[in-house]
């Protein structure tokens, strides 16, 4: 597969609306291209080509040697995608069409200091569509309308293999996936790669009291919904791995947990930062996320622990076909043998849904974000199956705030003013208290976008200051104290719940409301 063919594929994938159409395009590409090109293509789509040296700032710096920085910034603001902006703005040069493997190899193996010159040379000898594909490869963030899961599903469909089996060994395979394509061609499943595999996790669907009232509470177990991150802890013949719920191996960031995983099995639970009996807030946990390694100081100040709620495999026995209650019994015995920093998420006692509603309203800790409801006789099923598991989240906090600033969005929102800063009253001035860029419907987005365009009072680069007349209802999950924000508060997961055109700006909420909320949480 040449770079031009890859560029054409990306273009077709991006503009083919139906999932089936995308899968067909990918199937054809798997058939038409030999190893290792097709494996590299697949890795590019699943985000497994780790060419992480090529950073956005490197590309920006490079482009600014060819194009005026201000014109480039204005273009990026408009286009909303860095690779696309550079591919469109880069001065035209000659045309060539290298094989995909050649450009991947050189991006992976060129020392960082020589990368800018290499990339510039490539960009000088490619057409706009190939420049786009090349930059997408280099940065790894494709965003071309194909998820990693869709790419794997397309592979499984094309190969005639069960998707769950492909997903189970995926983490252990390396591009260009020669063993995987050999398996598709009739060879054995690559078992050696399958040590301590990730098992697709079971997910819940949202519910409420109305839906629950149709169900018999006696058939369900309940527990708190912890506001940490969902993990799968696997220990298999001496190999220990900690996975995120999407199957990403995050062991390196949590050596303290891996040390405690003295068992043989696959356990499902929540990763939390815990200090003694206390569970720290999600804000504390965030300090430890997205790090490749962790410092000793961080291990001491932010010690992690696990709170488990399910066992998929224990002592060589696959429990996934057994009932929730049976798995839970195994888990309870297992946890007793482990370090106290790994414990069991307790079951909640309730007779009626109203009992559970009362518990949900008064959780014993702020790190609880609702309750989980699980069918007692249900096996462990991969994916988001509606019925056996429900999440019944705490109601969000709501405030009415005034729109203050707006910026254009990126990705699929590019071109729309979709990043909003909103504020509340402090005396007779508005202070910004947060930013939100989702929550609204497409129709509401159009309304907000039009409002921004017609009510801009000042521009600061890409930021527009708008007339202080539009009130929005903001929903959020919690508040933290903040020294960075002038208002002294930072919201968790803020989103625009609805537009309050019925409300004049003067009737929006006051900062004191948030401060009172903060005091209650503390």
């Amino acid at each position, binding site marked *: 597969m040449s770079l031009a063919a890859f560029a054409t594929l990306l273009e077709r994938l*991006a503009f*083919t609306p139906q999932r089936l159409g995308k899968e067909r395009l990918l199937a054809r590409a798997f058939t038409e291209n030999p190893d290792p090109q097709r494996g590299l293509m697949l890795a590019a789509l699943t985000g497994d080509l780790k060419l992480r040296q090529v950073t956005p700032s490197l590309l920006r710096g490079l482009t600014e040697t060819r194009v*005026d920085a*201000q014109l480039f910034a204005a273009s990026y603001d*408009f286009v909303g995608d860095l690779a696309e902006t550079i591919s*469109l*703005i880069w001065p035209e040069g000659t045309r060539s069409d290298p094989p995909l493997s050649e450009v991947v190899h050189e991006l992976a193996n060129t020392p960082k200091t020589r990368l800018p010159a290499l990339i510039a040379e490539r960009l000088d000898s490619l057409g*706009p569509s190939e420049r786009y594909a090349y930059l997408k490869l280099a940065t790894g963030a494709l965003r071309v309308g194909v998820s990693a899961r869709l790419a794997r599903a397309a592979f499984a469909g094309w190969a005639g293999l069960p998707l769950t089996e492909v997903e189970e060994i995926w983490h252990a395979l390396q591009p260009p996936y020669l063993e995987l394509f050999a398996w598709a061609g009739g060879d054995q499943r690559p078992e050696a790669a399958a040590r301590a595999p990730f098992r697709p996790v079971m997910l819940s669907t949202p519910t409420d009291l109305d839906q629950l009232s149709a169900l018999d509470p006696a058939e369900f177990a309940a527990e708190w919904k912890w506001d940490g991150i969902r993990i799968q802890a696997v220990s298999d013949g001496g190999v220990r791995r900690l996975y995120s719920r999407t199957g990403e191996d995050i062991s390196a960031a949590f050596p303290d947990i891996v040390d405690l995983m003295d068992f043989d099995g696959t356990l499902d639970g929540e990763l939390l930062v815990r200090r003694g009996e206390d569970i720290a807030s999600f804000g504390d946990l965030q300090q430890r996320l997205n790090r490749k390694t962790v410092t000793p100081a961080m291990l001491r100040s932010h010690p992690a622990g696990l709170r488990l709620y399910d066992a998929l495999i224990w002592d060589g026995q696959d429990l996934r076909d057994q009932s929730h209650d049976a798995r839970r019994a195994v888990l309870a015995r297992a946890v007793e043998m482990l370090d106290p920093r790994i414990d069991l998420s307790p079951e909640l006692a309730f007779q009626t849904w109203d009992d559970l509603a009362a518990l949900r309203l008064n959780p014993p800790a702020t790190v609880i974000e609702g309750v989980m409801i699980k069918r007692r006789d249900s096996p462990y099923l991969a994916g988001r199956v509606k019925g056996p598991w429900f999440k019944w989240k705490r109601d969000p906090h709501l405030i009415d705030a005034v729109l203050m600033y707006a910026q254009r969005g990126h990705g699929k929102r590019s*071109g729309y003013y979709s990043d909003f800063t909103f504020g509340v009253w402090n005396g007779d001035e508005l202070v910004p208290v947060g930013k939100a860029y989702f929550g609204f419907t497409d129709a509401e987005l159009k309304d907000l976008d039009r409002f921004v365009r017609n009510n801009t009072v000042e521009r600061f680069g890409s930021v527009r200051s708008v007339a202080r007349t539009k009130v929005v209802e903001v929903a959020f999950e919690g508040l933290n104290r903040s020294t960075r924000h002038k208002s002294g508060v930072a919201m968790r997961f803020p989103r625009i719940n609805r537009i309050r055109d019925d409300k004049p700006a003067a009737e929006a909420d006051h900062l004191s409301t948030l401060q009172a909320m903060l005091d209650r949480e503390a």
Partner: protein
Amino acid sequence: MAREPLLLPRPDGLYCPAGDFFIDPLRPVPRALITHGHSDHARPGHGAVLATRQTLDIMAIRYGEDFAGSRQAYDGPVTLGETTVRFHPAGHVLGSAQIAVEGRGCRIVVSGDYARVPSPTCAPFEPVPCDIFVTEATFALPVFRHPPPEVEIARLLASVAAFPERSHLIGAYALGKAQRLIGALRQAGWDAPIHIHGALQRLCDYHVAEGIDLGDLRPATEGKKADFAGAIVIAPPSAFAATWAQRFPDPVISFASGWMQVRARARQRGVELPIVISDHVDWPHLTATIEELNPAEVWITHGREDALMRWCELQQRKARPLHLVGYEDEEE
């Protein structure tokens, strides 16, 4: 030198005190000069309107014969107060003109919207030397380098050939873009019937009456579903959301616009086949036009004025944004 300028921006639009008229005003005024028939430039309800005959005809088609108190078709230089006014082709849509205002020893050319890519549907842009050039900035970002229309038409025809069982539904605005597209298809040798939405009919008829050959055009409402296999259908983009589009077999949704160069824009519109065809200048044509005319000053009406201001600064050209609000920012 505190003399009153020849033209100045007002909330109602660009005003000429020495001649007491507006150019492309946004609200009804006693006397308006209109560059072209697009609805954000040509609005109904003015006292007197001066425009090209074709623009007046188009306004009458869109708004009815009584769209203004009185009208005057441009037919050579006109004296208005202390000024002399001339119209020159802008290459944008049928009837489109740049308006040159001369007086007090200064000539200002208000280009309206303009294009430099030739089209069979209108007279080509005429460069007019001037002291001040008033330009649009719709595509004034260096990312906008529109490919030649024949390349885009070839992509469209390749897609038609690749999916003979599907129809191709192309969104194009009713005045100008639709006819530019049809003209380009005819130039590329596509001589099969082209099916058009009812909203395009009268403007297409008018083009034909003006001697522009658009070939065999048929209403898209005639015929059975299967008859549209392999057909090209052109409609205003708004028609796609309606049940209207359901009459066609598995349509390939396409859109002809300069914005289609940006993938996210195409995807937001659910476009499967973006076609980059524009009736505005792209960045190379815009900057080349300014260099060619080499005016003492550039005024910028609407669009991405910040970027064009920056370019002028880099070229050490005097420029100012007019901040006229009300022209379509991102329609085309």
